[in-house]
């Protein structure tokens, strides 16, 4: 029996492997996954937004704004550099430097010290001395905003001319010299009239409006305090009074939602691969079954092997296809991680954490294989009933929608960190159990639930083998007879022949 099952499985496997669509799928998925981040990086708008400040009051507001945004940027550089140093253990480069200390919210004093020490270039030079060869380079954050001088026609224009000039600047191409993304107008009576106008070519970001508002507020308060008799130094002291925030964060990738997401990457990817593999191999397997029926091959085959051997062989062939795709895709991922050493490997290491224990690996293998078998049996039964691909589609579409739609919702729920009632229900319904368990592995599934859902799935597969096996056997030689619901139910009964 085993020999015949392996023989059929081998033929099914070779048939699919000979299909161009198999190789296209096998190659396209890794290519798409590889191109995704590259394209995403390329498509990301890294150009800073151009800010034009028209200061009709003739004060220092514009300069103060520029300084504030420069501070914001340098603070971001410090934060990113600090995470980079912590991720790769590079504190030895300069233990006293602010970027080597990860327990605080960087203050203006930290930023000032950072600048005085030579800024990012000096920091990177120190890091380069202790950095291992395979440690990736630091990718500094791009500047969000850049300040440009107002076009001449805007500097003095008022009323409609000002509006027209602003419109021209906002609508101008990115490359045009008069282009601006944000225009800030400080009126001639500022600060007596504290109205400050802001034009933007889209909804302005909080990253701009927040600091702008804080800077102008501080400026107004400074003026108010000095006008009320406080010395400029005392006023500045009041303004700069702030708590020294001590911040404790988990290491990069190691905490909270980020950790959950990272830990869910591999389980989610497996659930996704299971879904993709089932859709594809199910379609290929159907083509093979329909060829056997349409080319009148079945009688010749059934004279040599039993219907059960044919069915199990087809299932095993489909499983081999699925595992091949899994191996190639995961292998490609591992190869990429190995080749790139750095960032991706660092991401994958915590991502692999939930699937490195023997128990987790056994769980993965069980639910992946059980999922493949549970759904593939349905495809095999459909293949035994349909005489043509179009007829098979009639059965296949509702089945696929019924299985895959809830799975897409499930995966979104897992990504959002949601383990509510829908996720629980899907875990216990056998056709969705493999997807739910695989996807949830990163979040952690209670052992009792894992064993219970696995047992329910195993029972479901056993029932499928009995009932769909009968349907398969009864349908094999019933060529040209499109079974109605009544006939299908009759075929589920034990064979009387």
């Amino acid at each position, binding site marked *: 029996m085993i*020999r*015949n099952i392996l*023989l059929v499985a081998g*033929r099914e496997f070779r*048939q699919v492997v*000979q299909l161009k669509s198999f190789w296209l799928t096998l190659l396209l998925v890794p290519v798409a996954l590889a191109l995704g981040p590259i394209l995403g990086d390329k498509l990301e708008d890294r150009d800073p937004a151009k800010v034009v400040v028209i200061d009709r009051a003739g004060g220092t507001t514009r300069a103060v704004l520029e300084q504030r945004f420069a501070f914001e940027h340098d603070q971001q550089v410090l934060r990113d550099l600090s995470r980079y140093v912590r991720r790769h253990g590079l504190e030895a480069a300069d233990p006293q430097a602010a970027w080597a200390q990860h327990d605080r919210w960087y203050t203006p004093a930290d930023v000032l010290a950072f600048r005085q020490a030579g800024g990012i270039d000096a920091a990177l030079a120190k890091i380069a001395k202790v950095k291992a060869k395979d440690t990736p380079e630091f990718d500094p954050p791009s500047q969000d905003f850049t300040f440009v001088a107002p076009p001449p026609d805007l500097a003095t224009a008022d009323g409609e001319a000002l509006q027209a000039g602003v419109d021209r600047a906002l609508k101008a191409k990115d490359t045009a010299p008069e282009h601006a993304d944000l225009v800030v107008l400080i009126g001639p009576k500022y600060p007596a009239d504290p109205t400050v106008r802001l034009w933007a070519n889209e909804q302005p970001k909080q990253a701009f409006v927040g600091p702008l508002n804080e800077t102008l507020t501080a400026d107004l308060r400074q003026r108010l305090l000095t006008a009320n008799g406080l010395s400029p130094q005392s006023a500045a002291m009041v303004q700069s009074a702030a708590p020294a925030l001590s911040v404790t964060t988990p290491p990069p990738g190691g905490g909270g939602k980020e950790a959950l997401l990272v830990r869910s990457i591999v389980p989610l990817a497996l659930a996704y691969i299971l879904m993709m593999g089932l859709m594809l191999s199910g379609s290929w397997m159907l083509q093979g079954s329909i*060829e*056997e029926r*349409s*080319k*009148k*091959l079945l*009688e*010749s*085959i*059934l*004279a*040599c*092997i*039993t219907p059960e*051997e044919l069915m199990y062989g087809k299932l095993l062939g489909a499983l081999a296809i699925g595992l091949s795709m899994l191996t190639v895709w995961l292998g490609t991922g591992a190869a990429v991680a190995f080749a790139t050493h750095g960032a991706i490997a660092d991401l994958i290491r915590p991502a692999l954490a939930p699937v490195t224990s023997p128990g987790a690996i056994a769980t993965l293998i069980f639910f992946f294989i059980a999922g493949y078998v549970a759904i593939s049996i349905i495809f095999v039964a459909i293949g035994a009933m349909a005489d043509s691909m179009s007829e098979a589609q009639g059965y296949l579409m509702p089945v696929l929608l019924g299985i895959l739609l809830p799975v897409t919702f499930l995966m979104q729920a897992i990504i959002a960190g949601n383990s509510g009632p829908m996720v629980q229900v899907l875990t216990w319904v056998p056709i969705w159990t493999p997807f739910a368990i695989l996807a949830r592995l990163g979040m952690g599934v209670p052992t009792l639930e894992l064993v219970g859902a696995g047992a329910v799935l195993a029972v479901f597969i056993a029932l499928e083998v009995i009932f769909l096996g009968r349907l398969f056997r009864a349908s094999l*030689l019933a060529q040209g007879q499109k079974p109605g619901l009544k006939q299908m139910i009759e075929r589920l009964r034990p*064979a009387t*022949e």
Partner: protein
Amino acid sequence: MSVLKVEALTKRFADVLAVDDLSFSVEPGEIYGFLGGNGAGKTTTLRMVLDIIRPTSGRIEVLGGAPDRRNTAAIGFLPEERGLYGNMSAIDAITYFGRMKQMAASDAKAHGMELLKRFDLGDRAKAKISEMSKGMAQKVQLATAIVNRPRLLILDEPFSGLDPVNQQLLEDEIVGAAKGGAAVVFSTHVMQHAERLCDRILLLRKGKKRFEGTIDEARDQLPARIDAVAPAGITGIEGIAAANATADLGNGWSEYSLSLDPGVDAGDVLQRCTASGLPLRRFEERRATLHDVFVHLVGSAPDSSGELAR
């Protein structure tokens, strides 16, 4: 020992009695014909012998045991509806079926190549089935049936759809297999093939056996006819059941079509004519053909091509 023995075999599909109390046996080296019209139960019987479907009652013995896939190594089967995997090469298809019949891959491949060369397809061994003509594919299909050198070769309407060249090839293979000691069972509704090939035949009608025996025994089921040119006195010769004058040739001579009484030999009639001094210008015996017997027993007429409508 019989290669195939069937006793009181009955198969019922719901309200339809497809095979009714059928018994027969086939010996090694024998070519056994299964003759019957549409719905006679030929294919159903062969499927039961192959264990593709199970009988309602009765007993089947194949190579000394119950029908089972464990016998596949000794059984060759060519179904009525034929086809192969289009993407497979000829030799791969033959090897695949050989392996399903428990052959080692190397043996199946070697014998497959031998068969392809014998069928003049040696240079197309690696061609895909989908790239072959229908006639070539039919030869490959035949090779898949006999690659395991079967002791029992079952052919369901094997000549259906074959061109004359492939029909001759198949006839040669059937005769060759029988000479090699295999029992060959084939169903057909082409009487010429049965007459040429079969040692014994079985006539089925609505699942029930109507006749089993040799071709000669089958032809004896109907009385022989004699074409004679003689004077009117021939009508009184003993053993002649009816004399139908078909033409008046003048001068007292007529052309007759004579029917004999059952069991009467034409030679005896000729002797009686001579003994009684009846002159004869022509006396030609026409035995009943298998076609006549088929129509008489089964009740369906062959179509114009010599084949019964299916």
